């Protein structure tokens, strides 16, 4: 009896102690008022020349911004002229227009504090503008000129080429960027997706190539824009028609893009660098957005290595073992073409093999054992509850709508996103891990000083050394 009483007293102390320390509800079980949120409505219109525009009025700040997606990309450039798309994207903006010299274009825009930018990536061209409302007419006029009538003045083509060559000279200076690049090249080898510019390919590109690349793809029917900011719908439609109305619709054709083969065997690459820390990258070919398993994969990768501190890779390799500052995985869902699965970290040379082994076994573990109830709840709630952060500015909402249509996502994609995540089960996670993770056939890239490694890389398989071009 006495003993029981003593235990009871201790418990009281413990409870009182907890209550005293927090003096408030437990953050783990706190209740919150409901959150009101709907995906913001944008209006979709089609200009007479076929250009698709998403409009979103927002009067909070006297600003207007436009993001345009243009159907183009480096996958459509000839392999002998790798770098052409990127260069075209740059010089569309920097090379002046038929009406305005490059110097005048820069002067006018910067005096108004307006920005107009252009680039072409792997599977899209992007052009954007941002200005104060009072400078809308002047900026929109220059933005439309840049898109429709870039002049590609030859000295600016040469300048862009020289700057690109300089960046190629420097592309091995940073071991992390070097490893990222070599992994992507290896995963996509044999496909335009894996092409990377070289001094030779960049030197072969002519001004006429740029003109032709622009002529081929930059047509109103091949452009989707998101427009947001301080305007009335009517006024903006008129302005857009005035700016782009004279631009005639023309058909655009796209060459077939060769998709790389899925590798059956592991590959292992070493790049020697005398550094105190090794860069570790691994991965394989992934899937595209038309795959019905993208939601389960999103949850799976969140648990594996996409969910920051909560992920398995981070918890084990950083938090528990202190082997790395940065460690994560990414199952990127390809939009037009297959994406990649990649996992990355950096660790001191002396723990290189140990860390590679840990990463491989954590990835393999995903395909062998189901995740816990706690892990899947944590992942799903994190993804669902943070969904609203995709809509924190009207410019990003309009831009996102344009992007989703550009890549051919279903209209209801955003509306159904949270529901689709909430349906994912533990079984789904294990099933997609088994189906879409290939720990037995990963490509591994390591940049570092092999002399200092804890074990030779050959423990993981046959090593090929990538020798960096030393003539540069």
């Amino acid at each position, binding site marked *: 009896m006495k003993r029981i009483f003593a235990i009871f007293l201790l418990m009281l102390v413990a409870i009182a102690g907890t209550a005293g320390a927090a003096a408030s509800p437990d953050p783990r079980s706190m209740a919150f008022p409901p959150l009101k949120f709907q995906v913001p409505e944008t209006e979709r219109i089609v200009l007479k020349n076929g250009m698709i525009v998403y409009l979103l009025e927002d009067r909070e*700040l006297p600003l207007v911004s436009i993001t345009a997606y243009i159907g183009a990309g480096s996958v459509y450039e000839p392999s002998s002229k790798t770098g052409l798309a990127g260069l075209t994207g740059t010089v569309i903006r920097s090379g002046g227009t038929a009406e305005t010299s490059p110097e005048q274009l820069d002067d006018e825009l910067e005096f108004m504090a307006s920005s107009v930018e252009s680039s072409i990536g792997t599977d899209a061209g992007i052009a954007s503008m941002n200005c104060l409302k009072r400078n809308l007419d002047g900026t929109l006029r220059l933005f439309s000129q840049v898109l429709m009538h870039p002049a590609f003045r030859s000295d600016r083509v040469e300048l862009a080429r020289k700057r690109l060559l300089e960046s190629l000279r420097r592309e091995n200076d940073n071991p992390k960027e070097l490893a990222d690049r070599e992994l992507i090249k290896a995963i996509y080898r044999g496909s335009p997706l894996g092409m990377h510019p070289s001094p030779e390919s960049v030197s072969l590109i002519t001004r006429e190539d740029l003109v032709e690349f622009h002529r081929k793809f930059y047509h109103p029917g091949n452009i989707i824009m998101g427009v947001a900011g301080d305007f009335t719908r009517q006024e903006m439609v008129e302005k857009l028609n005035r700016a782009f109305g004279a631009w005639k619709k023309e058909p655009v054709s796209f060459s077939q893009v060769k998709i790389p083969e899925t590798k059956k065997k592991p590959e292992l690459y070493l790049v020697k660098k005398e550094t105190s820390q090794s860069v570790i990258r691994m991965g394989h070919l992934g899937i595209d957005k038309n795959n019905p398993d993208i939601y389960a994969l999103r949850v799976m990768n969140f648990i594996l290595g996409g969910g920051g501190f909560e992920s398995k890779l981070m918890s084990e390799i950083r938090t528990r073992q202190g082997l790395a500052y940065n460690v994560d995985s990414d199952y990127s869902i390809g939009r037009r073409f297959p994406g990649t699965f990649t996992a990355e970290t950096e660790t001191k040379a002396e723990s290189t093999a140990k860390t590679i082994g840990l990463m491989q076994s954590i990835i393999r573990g995903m395909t062998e054992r189901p995740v816990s109830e706690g892990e899947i709840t944590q992942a799903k709630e994190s993804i669902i509850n943070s969904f609203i952060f995709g809509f924190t500015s009207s410019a990003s909402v309009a831009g996102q709508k344009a992007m989703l249509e550009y890549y051919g996502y279903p209209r209801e994609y955003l509306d159904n996103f949270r529901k689709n995540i909430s349906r994912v089960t533990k079984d789904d996670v294990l099933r997609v891990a088994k189906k879409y993770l290939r720990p037995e056939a990963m490509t591994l890239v390591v940049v570092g000083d092999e002399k200092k490694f804890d074990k030779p890389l050959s423990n993981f398989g046959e090593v090929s050394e990538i020798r960096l071009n030393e003539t540069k």
Partner: protein
Amino acid sequence: MKITGKLLILSLSLLLLIPPAFGAGLEEKVKEHTLKNGMKVLMVERHTSPTVALWIRYKVGSVNELSDERGIAHLLEHMLFKGTKTIGTRNYAAERPLLAEIEKNASELMAEKLKKDKADKGKIEALSKKLASLEAKEDAYVLPNEFSQIYAKNGGLSLNAFTAKDTTAYMVNLPSNKIELWASMESDRMKNAVLRQFYTERNVVMEERRRAYETEPDGKLWEEFLAAAFVAHPYGLPIIGWMSDIENLSRTKAESFLRRYYAPNNAVVAIVGDIDPRKTVSLVEKYFGSIPPGRSVPPVATVEPKQSGERRVEVVDDAEPELLMGFHKPAVSSPDDYVFDVIEMILADGRTSLLFRKLVVETQIAADISAASVPGSMYPNLFLISATPRSPHTVAELEKAINDELELLKNKPLSRKELDKVLNNLEAGEINSMGSNGGIAYRLTEYEATVGTWRYMVEHRKKVARVTPEDVLRVARTYFTRENRTVGFITKREATR
């Protein structure tokens, strides 16, 4: 005050960095409230989305470290994600004695290792083993990352922190119905932080140092450059600490730093987004109001002596050349600092800036160029020009070309149009920066903590508008001198062989 360019190694972040700019149109929008314990709360209502950015900025940074605790401000920032007496642990009462044992063991280990050649290797091995086994025991009580898990589960995004020279900040974005979660978590962290798994996290920070500085040529140059530019002021020391500094940091030191400075009177809070300021104030009062104030952070007493001749630093590395050029200048909000803001924009902001036009477009000596005031702002700092030579042009050619441009700036007055361009860009920058909850919170806390008032954001452009062409000539002549210059550059290793 503007930070641009690729050398953004100004602050160390737990995960990644936040881009800054400046703000306006907000004079009427900011609501201020100061708690009795001295904690300042700044609020801005924005209902664009049902989200809120929540920031706590402490007026303490790496400059406030003592010589045997270099790196502790940053390591402590990492440690403050390890939980509290109730979060991140299965049983704190049982965990506590283990923490003490770990600390005792780790101190003995550090002391033995410090003997270097005279150290007892057997003792080191035994202590290391013991430490590992104690840590494994402690692991059994730890719920790893529970602190961040709670935020994430509730939709928290961008949970992060960074340590700068002058200040340290902790931030998260939450759905706006969950402000109370933040108040509960952060008041608990302010009162009851437990620095568990310290020595594992110290290893993480060493990996962070290797990643950002030792294997990154730009990072290495940055460290060496600052160390040369400042011989006395702690602005010359790396925030993360030199490797040997980190190796000798202890939980005791971290706790001492925590107790010394992390009090509400040294904290500035910004809450920006979909909020009701009245309700928000009462929540903050409820959770933070009872936390007692501590002493305020004393200013750094050391004054950097006047430089008396050019300093040059070379980093030989497996990388292409880079150039840094720095000139000592006064701290933020001193009269000449506004002139430097004009100079920075005129020289290197945008495609029409003087250096970009001349060196990148016309002579093509440089591939890129930028300018910024670094590495902190509360104390006299540096005006930095960083530039990338374009092969076959050399660092020496580029250096001469930049100096030639600076000479021009000393002699040729700016036109009204050039100054108007600066003001237009400041205005647009301010308005653009008002479009993000996190961006507003960053700047409110930055200026409240460093200048002493967030109103600096409102007054900045007015002060810049008073800068005359003569001011620019005078400031350029005063500061852009050989005696006041530090030059740092990378030389490619093979070129030295």
